[in-house]
């Protein structure tokens, strides 16, 4: 990626803003615990980080634990439980009360909706897992909202870029920043890894790259969302890559998996299950890589910022702050890098699937 002064300014501005807000978010929760012991504080920080990296039924910007007030907005909860139940998440009062909808009662326990009785009793098995029934949950959660926002942003940006090409051969506005990236994906990811049939896969590669990148960047903003660090999201993305790969696989690809040419027959029997396993491991690794990188990045960054308030002396806090700053820069890099790797590996797998050459002499 070319680094222009504009990009630099953009990133630095972005960084400083996100750093400030992150700090404020944590501060709010920790100030309240000022007098309590360090253990309590640690517990609170852990809860805060857990809350941050998990999905939520309401969009909370920050909470005041002293007054128990949450600043944010509620989101619709959509459940399928012998009929559609749609109600606002404000009915849950952040998991503290039981919500009633069409005669059914629901309660949130550990960030999941369970069907309960009117009192909200949850029964547990011996391993302390709830045994209550779980309705099918299609709620518009925080992450879904962010996905919609990202989708809308992408649509506006790239439809705008497409429109600006109608006026002339040179893009205008924000498109000038994104056009080289689009070209980079085409020339350096799709073309060399897929080959002459790259055109068919361009929409997916471009969409997945920008989708992951934007969501990674949103994850670094003070909005406190963690979409790409959620296993369901990365599973969905990896599944799409998997499906596209298998559906575009030609004879050559399947032959390579089940009856690899150029190796002795006994070896073929050993190789076939390994190759078949590889077909599933590849998207699995894709899913885990994105999830683990983003998740780990968030946890580490939040922990380091929390350390600022935990240590509470000039040297320790200062060091933590500097460390958090540099970690933020690394996370920005990771945000782009993970999007790049996901796209690159997807392109590589598509390349395997559509490859058209004789393996006889290649092996």
């Amino acid at each position: 990626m070319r680094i222009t002064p504009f990009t630099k300014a953009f990133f630095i501005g972005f960084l400083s803003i996100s750093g400030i807000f992150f700090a404020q978010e944590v501060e709010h929760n920790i100030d309240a615990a000022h007098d309590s012991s360090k253990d309590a504080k640690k517990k609170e920080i852990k809860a805060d980080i857990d809350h941050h990296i998990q999905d939520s039924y309401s969009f909370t910007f920050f909470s005041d634990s002293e007054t128990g007030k949450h600043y944010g907005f509620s989101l619709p909860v959509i459940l399928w439980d012998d009929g559609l139940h749609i109600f606002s998440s404000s009915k849950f009062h952040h998991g503290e009360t039981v919500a009633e909808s069409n005669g059914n009662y629901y309660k949130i326990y550990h960030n999941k909706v369970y069907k309960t009785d009117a009192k909200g009793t949850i029964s547990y098995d011996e391993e302390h897992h709830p045994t209550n029934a779980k309705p099918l949950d299609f709620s518009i959660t925080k992450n879904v909202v962010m996905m919609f926002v990202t989708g809308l942003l992408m649509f506006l940006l790239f439809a705008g870029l497409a429109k600006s090409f109608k006026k002339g051969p040179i893009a205008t506005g924000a498109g000038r920043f994104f056009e080289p990236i689009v070209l980079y994906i085409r020339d350096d990811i799709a073309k060399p890894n897929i080959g002459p049939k790259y055109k068919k896969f361009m929409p997916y590669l471009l969409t997945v790259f920008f989708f992951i990148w934007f969501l990674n960047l949103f994850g670094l903003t003070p909005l406190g969302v963690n979409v790409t660090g959620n296993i369901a999201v990365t599973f969905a993305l990896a599944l799409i890559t998997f499906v596209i790969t298998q559906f575009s696989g030609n004879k050559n690809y399947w032959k390579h998996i089940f009856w690899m040419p150029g190796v002795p027959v006994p070896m073929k029997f050993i190789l076939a299950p390994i190759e078949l396993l590889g077909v599933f491991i590849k998207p699995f690794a894709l899913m885990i890589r994105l999830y683990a990188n983003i998740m780990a990045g968030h946890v580490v960054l939040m922990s380091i910022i929390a350390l600022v308030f935990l240590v509470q002396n000039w040297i320790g806090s200062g060091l933590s702050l500097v460390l958090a700053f540099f970690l933020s820069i690394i996370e920005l890099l990771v945000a782009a890098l993970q999007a790049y790797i996901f796209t690159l590996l997807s392109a590589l797998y598509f390349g395997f699937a559509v490859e058209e050459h004789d393996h006889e002499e290649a092996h």
Partner: protein
Amino acid sequence: MEVPTIVGAGLIVIGVGIGIGRIGGSAMDAIARQPEATGKIQTAMLIAAALIEGIGFAALFVG
């Protein structure tokens, strides 16, 4: 059996670390030797590192 899995995870992480480190080092050597091929080397390095990392993650989460 809690301890062996953790130890195994640790071993895997060490292995993956050594592997990716070697890839990075070799890539540096290659770039130093042929600076004009930097782009290609970087791409190959990232792919190799990502594949090893994938195995690491898979083992880590299964174990």
